[in-house]
């Protein structure tokens, strides 16, 4: 009968160790979950989502910037002049992030030129923000020179009439990351983002968004 207390002690010790192990695992699991959530939130700060359209139409890009003042920026244009978004207060502005290696961006550019010319008299402007140097290091002078030359060549070839700004990557975070191109933000006369668009849609879709920016 002496075996029972010993067996009981073993059982208690085993159970205690098991409980401690569960506590340790729960603590680790909780820490890991919080770490992953923090990473997700950090990486997703300001990022939008593509929401499928009812009936399988063009997905809507829902940016957290919609309804908020467009993040301020000052970038150099192709001639080295500083251009600030604040200079366009009172006008509706389409901020179009693009790059020469982006085929859909090249397709979209003639539409933007046409619409810019159509609505300029109503107080509308396009700001083309080039993101050519996305994978370039700041000290890569040759790389930046090549990127600027590529943008200049395309702008000259297409006779782009609106300002084209360089180093768009420096403001990408404020605009939710530029993981897909083209991305456009439609800003009203008060400087508020009224709608946004990611990927190539259609000229009529862009036009309706310009009208929204002009009228809201």
């Amino acid at each position, binding site marked *: 009968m002496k075996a029972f207390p010993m067996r009981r002690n073993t059982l208690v010790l085993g159970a205690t160790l098991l409980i401690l192990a569960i506590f340790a695992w729960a603590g680790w*699991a909780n820490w890991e979950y919080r770490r992953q959530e923090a990473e997700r939130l950090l990486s997703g700060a300001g990022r939008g989502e593509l929401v499928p359209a009812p009936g399988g139409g063009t997905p809507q890009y829902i940016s957290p910037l919609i309804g908020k003042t467009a993040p301020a920026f000052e970038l150099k244009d192709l001639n080295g002049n500083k251009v600030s978004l604040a200079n366009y207060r009172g006008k509706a502005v389409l901020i179009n992030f693009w790059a020469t290696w982006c*085929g859909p961006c090249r397709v979209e550019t003639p539409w933007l030129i046409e619409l810019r010319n159509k609505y300029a008299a109503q107080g509308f402007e396009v700001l083309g923000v080039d993101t050519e140097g996305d994978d370039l290091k700041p000290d890569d002078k040759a790389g930046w020179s090549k990127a600027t030359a590529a943008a200049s060549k395309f702008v000259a070839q297409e006779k782009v009439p609106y300002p084209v700004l360089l180093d768009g990557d420096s403001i990408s975070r404020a605009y939710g990351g530029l993981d897909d191109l083209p991305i456009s933000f439609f800003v009203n006369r008060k400087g508020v983002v009224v709608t946004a668009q990611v990927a190539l849609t259609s000229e009529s879709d862009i036009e309706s968004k310009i009208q929204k920016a002009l009228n809201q």
Partner: protein
Amino acid sequence: MHPLTKRVGTAVMVLAIGVVAARGQGLGSKAQSRPLLKTEAVTYLFPEQVSVPAGKPSQVALHFRIAQGLHINSHTPNYEYLIPTTFSIPDGSGVQLDAATYPAGSLMTLTYDPTTKLSVYTGEFIIQARIVATAGNHLVEGKLHYQACDNNACMPPKTITVAIDVIGK
């Protein structure tokens, strides 16, 4: 059953249920997020390790996979403004890339631009790398540079690491 055993058993079960429920709640909220982007367009498949004769040029077939619905430019895209896919091995790894042979691209025309014929890779593709390794074990971190698009949007150019353990014998 001994009362103590019963109590311990109950406590363990309650704890386990609580922990599982807490984890489940966390996973549930995460599953609701819908990412906009495909973060990894290209994945390196294999080989992870190769043995080659030291000092002699050797062929290694590097296998890659492109995510469904995406394409990347071939090594020889049809337009100078497109970014070609390239493979390189940084200096100082003990392994030199003598030459790389890339597959021919498939011609692709996108609906929005029927006049432009792209030369692209889709699905899986293989780069034949001719390497020369010195004797010994080398953990090589090759680099694959590419730029991916789907039908309506493009992702920025990216460089991924191609990790291979090269044993020069």
